[in-house]
């Protein structure tokens, strides 16, 4: 495993360990959400019945809750080297921004954001008791990030609002970026063929 490929970004250092302790989701549209959702007809209330779009966003929110908790479990495991922990903090902060944007959007569209489960539920669902070393944590994170990227790509055809579909593509890009860094740290080969995600 080559964790030197997980470069230490300054922003991660700024976030620090305390970043893991932040809880709660934004209730209004953050700057990130506004930028992310610019042009979305459903959010603006001009896209007709947004019902199914809200359901899709709520599943995405559930996925982001799980991702945040997965990094929390990894950070609290004591298995991560400091440099790797800093990157995990950064990736978790991305997922928190996703969560906040999705939460605010669902509320603005008249939906009820799905609640975060208890930590014990995530520990069980992710089989966290099987984590024995840093490599295990990174493998779990890589699996979840690749799965999340594919999940976002797989719901794109179902969106009524094409701008929300584009949001899903942007979220998928973030998850793919995370997967790429994690796969590099695990010394996994790059995909040999193009178009390996989604489809």
């Amino acid at each position, binding site marked *: 495993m080559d964790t030197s490929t997980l470069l230490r970004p300054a922003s991660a250092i700024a976030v620090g360990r305390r970043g893991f302790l932040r809880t709660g989701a934004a209730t209004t549209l953050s700057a990130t959400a506004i930028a992310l959702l610019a042009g979305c007809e459903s959010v603006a209330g001009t896209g007709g019945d947004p019902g*199914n779009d809200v*359901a*899709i966003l*709520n*599943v995405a929110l*559930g*996925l982001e809750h*799980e991702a945040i908790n997965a990094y929390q479990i990894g950070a609290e495991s004591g298995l991560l080297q400091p440099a790797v922990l800093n990157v995990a903090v950064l990736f978790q902060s991305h997922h928190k921004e996703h969560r906040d944007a999705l939460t605010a959007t669902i509320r603005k569209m008249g939906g009820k954001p799905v609640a975060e489960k208890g930590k014990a539920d995530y520990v*069980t*669902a*992710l*089989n966290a008791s099987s984590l024995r070393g840093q490599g295990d944590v990174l493998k779990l994170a890589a*699996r*979840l990030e*690749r*799965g*999340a*990227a*594919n*999940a976002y790509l*797989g*719901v794109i*055809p*179902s969106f009524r609002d094409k701008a929300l579909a584009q949001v899903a593509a942007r979220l998928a890009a973030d998850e793919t970026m995370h997967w790429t860094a994690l796969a590099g740290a695990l010394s996994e080969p790059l995909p040999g063929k193009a178009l*390996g*995600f989604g*489809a």
Partner: protein
Amino acid sequence: MSKEPYRRSFAALAAILAAGVASAPARADADPERGARLYESRCIGCHSLDANRVGPRHRGVYGRRAGSVPGFDYSPALKKAAIVWDAAALDRWLANPQSLIPGQRMNFRVTAERDRADIIAFLKRESGK
């Protein structure tokens, strides 16, 4: 000339087509090993075989009634869906969940028929069927 023979023919044809839709067999060339790889990359974001996560656990899904995994919070639409997950139902579900069960929450689509067949073959195998 009586129209009755034509009516009978159309009725028979409709019955044959309906039976074909309801009991479409799994593709003979479906590959559960490839399905396992697809499951790992496409489905694992929300599902696991043995744990309820964003979506319900999948072991045993083949042959199971829709909306029946204990402890999972299904949509009302899925709870009341009178569907047993066989190859045909899973194929329609993966192709377009909202088309099969309006009001469901998944909305993830597997667009390629071959991919759906392989994933279903994997799920069938992991369900002991």
